[in-house]
């Protein structure tokens, strides 16, 4: 399948409802594809949306039918933070449809942070983990401490990742932290959320929408690899808690399908829900050897001006993380990178040939990896 059009709203804390984000992103994607909604044969939609604002509902597919005045099949998939990637993977498997709109939107930041945090926590296991205070930052903090002991990485390595992603987001008009770069020292001295992770190690839950139009008609960007794997909800019941098996499996599937290796990738969007997750994912995706992820960030190779920029958009960390939208926002960024349509300062020169997206649901419980090729 080919990417025919992409659209994404600015990520923010505006009071717009989820469907408004969905509509805006769709219109941008349709215009990019030079299509109208009449050309769309099926829709795959991802969202969790907060229950606190009074607009949450469980029949969004019918709402979308109404919104777009269409009667095509609409499938809703949910996989929390990995929802966008799973929706994209699902759409790629709907072989009998010519043009598919893959859509995600979220209204999430709409209440006190302790309530929003609690809602996000509903993506974790209830009886044995939520009750024991395993917030997502906490789960990841515990994993990272184990990693540090095993591989001699440091908190300074994570600070470099946060600094990189904030620097990139400062150049991205659709990022929440656009034109708001943050100094490295401020990253290092931000308050502790769950030791040893600090505020600046955590991504930002925001509101937003993203839309991708997949088509069997050729275009300038082709999806050449797609992988999807799951893992146990109980984080500490997994074989190796310092790495994400689902990322490794999904990555292997995607690279095998694409017929290329991690060394061929020119640009990537990695699921940096926490800076530690980005670093561990370098290894799980094959960009660094196991235990050597810190060397990659220290080398500067993955900075915006490096050999293979990672998270040129600013990532979840600084562009923002509207839960289900993230997976499609990554596709939006990589498509524009391959097309040479990202803003000049964020654009690699010469144009990249291969791009990769990596989207995680929960604490590594569902992972998709997609690989894209510039065809022209």
């Amino acid at each position: 399948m080919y990417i025919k059009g992409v659209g994404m709203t600015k990520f923010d804390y505006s009071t717009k409802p989820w469907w408004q984000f969905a509509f805006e992103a769709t219109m941008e994607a349709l215009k990019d594809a030079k299509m109208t909604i009449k050309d769309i044969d099926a829709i795959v939609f991802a969202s969790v949306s907060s229950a606190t604002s009074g607009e949450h509902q469980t029949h969004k597919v019918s709402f979308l039918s109404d919104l777009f005045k269409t009667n095509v099949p609409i499938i809703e998939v949910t996989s929390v933070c990995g929802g966008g990637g799973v929706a994209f993977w699902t759409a790629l498997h709907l072989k009998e449809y010519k043009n598919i709109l893959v859509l995600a939107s979220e209204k999430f930041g709409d209440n006190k942070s302790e309530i929003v945090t609690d809602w996000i926590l509903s993506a974790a296991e209830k009886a044995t983990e939520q009750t024991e205070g395993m917030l997502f930052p906490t789960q990841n903090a515990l994993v990272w401490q184990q990693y540090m002991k095993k591989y001699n990485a440091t908190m300074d390595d994570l600070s470099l990742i946060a600094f990189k992603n904030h620097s990139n987001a400062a150049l991205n008009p659709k990022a929440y932290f656009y034109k708001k770069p943050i100094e490295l020292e401020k990253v290092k001295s931000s308050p502790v959320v769950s030791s040893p992770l600090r505020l600046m190690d955590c991504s930002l839950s925001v509101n937003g929408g993203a839309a991708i139009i997949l088509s069997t008609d050729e275009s300038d960007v082709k999806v050449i690899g797609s992988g999807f794997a799951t893992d146990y909800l109980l984080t500490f019941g997994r074989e190796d808690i310092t790495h994400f098996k689902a990322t490794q499996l999904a990555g292997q599937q995607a690279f095998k399908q694409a017929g290329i290796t991690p060394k061929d990738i020119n640009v990537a969007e990695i699921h940096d829900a926490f800076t530690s997750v980005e670093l561990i994912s370098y290894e799980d995706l094959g960009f660094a050897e196991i235990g050597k992820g810190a060397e990659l960030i220290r080398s500067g190779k993955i900075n915006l001006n490096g050999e293979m920029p990672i998270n040129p958009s600013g990532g979840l960390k600084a562009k923002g993380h509207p839960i289900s939208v993230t997976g499609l926002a990554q596709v939006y960024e990589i498509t524009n990178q391959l097309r040479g349509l990202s803003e000049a300062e964020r654009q690699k020169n010469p144009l990249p040939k291969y791009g990769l997206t990596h989207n995680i649901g929960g604490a590594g419980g569902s992972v998709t990896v997609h690989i894209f090729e510039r065809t022209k």
Partner: protein
Amino acid sequence: MPFYKCSKCGRIWQYPLSECPYCIIGLDKMFANQSKVIEVSKVMIPTTRHSFVPYNACIIEDENKNKWAHKTTQDIKVGDDLSFEAKQDPKIVGVWRIKYDFIEAIERTIDLIGGINFNENSKVLILPTLISITQPYFRENTSPEFLMAILDFLLSKKVKLENIKIGSQSFGEIPIEAMADKSGLLKVCLKNNITPLDLSKLGFVKQDNLEISEEALKADVVFNLVVPKAGKAKATENSFYILKKENYLGLKYLNSDKEIAKDLQAGLPKMVNLAEAEYLQTADGLIVFLGLFLASRSFINLDMILNEIIMEKKLPEILTEMKIEEIPIAGRDIKEVQLDINRI
């Protein structure tokens, strides 16, 4: 922390499944004697379910290499043993996190309050909460799962089925049989070949001011199965169902529930109160997930601790003069399980 292993393929679950989906055979419960802290993170941000910070979130590992999450407000460091001290104190309340497995919760909380010595001649009366004609999910009555678990627990302790009695009575207009049927408890009794008793139709023995069920006095242990509710003293209230109805109503007219409770506690020290607080009813009848299990030989102390855990400010009259700091606790600290249910 209970784990369940397939003896054929070696897969391990934290959920008490009936069988391995790969090998189609039953799972074995894994036992561990030692649990150590292998990682600690100090959490600084509050959420609605964890409003007191900081607390320590830990990874615990047992000798079988099984790992799980644990929250504590105690100072704790990597390498520390995770242990819970049991105490022989009739006033103590054992507090435990229920993690899918009622039997584990029953065993742990009874251990925490000093244990019970069962033998093959032990006689047990089970006094379920049975107060309304409602489906189990309303959490008005003892759940069928809990009753089933207590029976399994007793059988595992070699208590003979013929020595286990299940009974209660109705103080209102609703017949006890109708409540037993709708609640699903009758089905559990029949499945286990136990004929449930209507205590009101059996004998009572006068003991000072109280007329106590003969079945309760004959038993070596009376299990009071408590269904907690916010702002109520449900353990205490349910214990009154071993009194003769007329005796209770007469005493209530002349005295208060507080005085009746005091006399009953003294008159029937062999009562063990077990509260299934996995779910809890708010004052409005809404159901909230609490994930707890409590045990105590003192029903009034159990009621007080439950209301403290859910941060209930409107206490029933029976609890108003009690001092929480005078009630000994075993197992989990109140702060680490406390949940303001009015904020959920």
